[in-house]
């Protein structure tokens, strides 16, 4: 029984790593622009396919191949694929901000919700036209042999994802609280007009937030592809669960978001240990409960409306 619990814990943390990375992506744009990229999930899928295409190109195959066969790309190829996923998705984030968010941000109404959703639909349709619906099995950068602690097993890629999520959380936390850039981002979030009067280039900060958030989606996709297989639909669940994780932890607190993501992963795994068919019910019941009693999440700052 202890073994089963430990296995559920580590499996949950592994799945939670993906949720945590996505949750962080939501948090970054929210803390600076008070908007969200509602197609973050589609960005995750797109990032996975950019990475996969780069790997195919490194191996000298057409970028829209559907299988790696026995070919395993080297470390250099993996690094190049990671960089292209980050770069292309970052650029897409910039495009999304310029076309879909800036014209509407700060205005009354919810136009940016629709425009970010629409951006995702467009992205997915283009992806389907290029790569088709078939999932691609992707070789991971750290191999696939199960790592065992006693009778508890986990795959290296899952540990890597977990580690990366924690690392990025601490890095982001440090940047936000200890550097001028972080201070500028927080200032823009608190009050864009005043920040602008203080000489902060608010436009650049907001673009930066969308670029980083989308690059993070690219990273999530790249890391997730060897675990879940690259598919244009893979981002849908992860996006929704990541968002739920962010709501549980608190959208305004990056540390809370990551913890929320991990919490959700472990909760799912524990519910599976009980009655798997009730998993989704349990997850969203928790989200509703948290929102009812702590509307800003477990770790979010209390929102005080000044009148």
């Amino acid at each position, binding site marked *: 029984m202890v073994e089963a619990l430990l296995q559920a814990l580590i499996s949950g943390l592994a799945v939670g790593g993906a949720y945590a990375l996505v949750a962080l992506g939501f948090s970054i744009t929210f803390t600076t622009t008070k908007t969200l990229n509602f197609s973050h999930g589609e960005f995750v899928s797109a990032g996975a396919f950019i990475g996969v295409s780069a790997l195919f190109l490194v191996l000298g195959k057409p970028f829209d191949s559907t299988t790696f066969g026995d070919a395993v790309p080297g470390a250099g190829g993996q690094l190049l694929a990671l960089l292209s996923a980050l770069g292309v998705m970052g650029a897409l984030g910039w495009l999304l901000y310029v076309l879909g968010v800036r014209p509407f941000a700060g205005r009354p109404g919810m136009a940016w919700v629709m425009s970010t959703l629409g951006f995702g639909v467009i992205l997915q349709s283009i992806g389907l036209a290029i790569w088709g619906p078939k999932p691609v*099995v992707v070789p991971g950068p750290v191999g696939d042999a199960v790592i065992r602690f006693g009778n508890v097993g986990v795959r290296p890629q899952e540990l890597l994802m977990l580690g990366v999520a924690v690392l990025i959380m601490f890095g982001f936390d440090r940047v936000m609280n200890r550097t001028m850039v972080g201070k500028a981002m927080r200032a823009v979030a608190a009050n864009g007009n005043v920040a602008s009067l203080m000489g902060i280039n608010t436009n650049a900060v907001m673009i930066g937030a969308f670029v980083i958030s989308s690059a993070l989606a690219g990273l999530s996709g790249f890391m997730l592809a060897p675990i879940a*297989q690259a598919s244009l639909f893979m981002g849908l*669940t992860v996006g929704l669960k990541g968002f739920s994780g962010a709501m549980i932890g608190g959208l305004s607190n990056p540390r809370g978001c990551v913890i929320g993501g991990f919490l959700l992963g472990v909760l799912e795994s*524990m519910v*599976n240990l009980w009655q798997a068919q009730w998993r989704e019910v349990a997850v969203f019941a928790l989200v509703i409960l948290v929102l009812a009693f702590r509307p800003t999440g477990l770790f979010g700052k209390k929102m005080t409306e000044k009148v």
Partner: protein
Amino acid sequence: MKRLAFKFLAAAAASTIVAACAYAQEIKLGYNGDLSASPSAQSGQAAVLGMEAAIADVNAAGGVLGRKLTLITRDDVSQPPKSIQNMSDLVDNEKVVAVFGPTNSGNAMAWKHIANQKKIPVLGNVGSGTDITKPMSPGADNYMFRVSMVDRQQVAALMAYVKKNAATSKVIGLMAETTGYGQGGLKDMEEIAALQGIKPAAVERFGVGDTDMTSQLSKMKSAGVDTVVVWAQGTPIAQLIRSMEKINYFPLTLTSWAADNITFYDAAGKTLAEKPIFMRTVSETKTPAQQKLFDRIGAKLKAPGSFSFALHGYDSILILTQAIKQANSTDGAAVRAALEDLKAPVPGLLKTYDQPFSKTNHEALTAKDLVWIRWKDGRLLPYTDALIGSLASADFKQ
């Protein structure tokens, strides 16, 4: 000048009439299924290749009732509304004599009432859903036939194996994904387990996109399950086997035929792909006649594993041809009656069909026609053990 124009018109009219006559002489058959959109499109494309080969052979031998066969294909992009629209188009506009397909069982369920109302025989050669060939109401005339895998027949065979394997299969677990496909299969598994007197010690479900099923497997392990029967699509079965590796727990694993999909093999990897045993209508070791068809169309197949659907497609055309001959008509009701009472055996590529259908049985392939399969070195090879050889008709309960 005027005269010339008149002559030209007359010639054009004459050629149209000749063309129309040739047109009327052809017997039109329709195919309605996914040819482009989902992973099942590969199966649909293979079925069409097999049907086209059979039609070429029938036509080369003089056709049926002195008329040539021709195939009209309609892609339903796996969407039920499009599939319904195709059905009306094929029946009302194209006036086809019979329809083949579809690839997705749900689409067959969406339009089987059309086939029954319009009295157009349908020979399914891809979709495996158990309910497709059931009549609309008990005893009603039923126009839905099938030359393909059937979910319930697979379950019947898997459960017969489990029952007979009592020496090593002492504690049984059932697992299924939470989609319509998985839950339909789970219902079949639970019903047939009850018929066989098997009491599952654990029943577990998992999501179709899950990447880790260790929790469910831990429960199986602690319940002492030594044999697990799984109903899911290719990719989740692969994730399940990968999760088994994580906790180093490998019970005897019997699965739905989705494990024959190349996506399963890719995702599980060579070693783990060789764990489950499942069923298909054909293995990769071919009879000479099957090899001949493979030589003709193999190069056009998107995945070699989809060849089984080409065989279903080929045989379904032969069976229909025989029924039209016997009915001496292409009238739907007459063809249905002939299909339900075929006097002469039909030598197909999978087997010789001796009275394949009756009033109550609309499945040409049943549990005893299926072959046991296990992946070996990237090929779908027949699997056999002493127990499989001893399975008799009486063991298959459904």
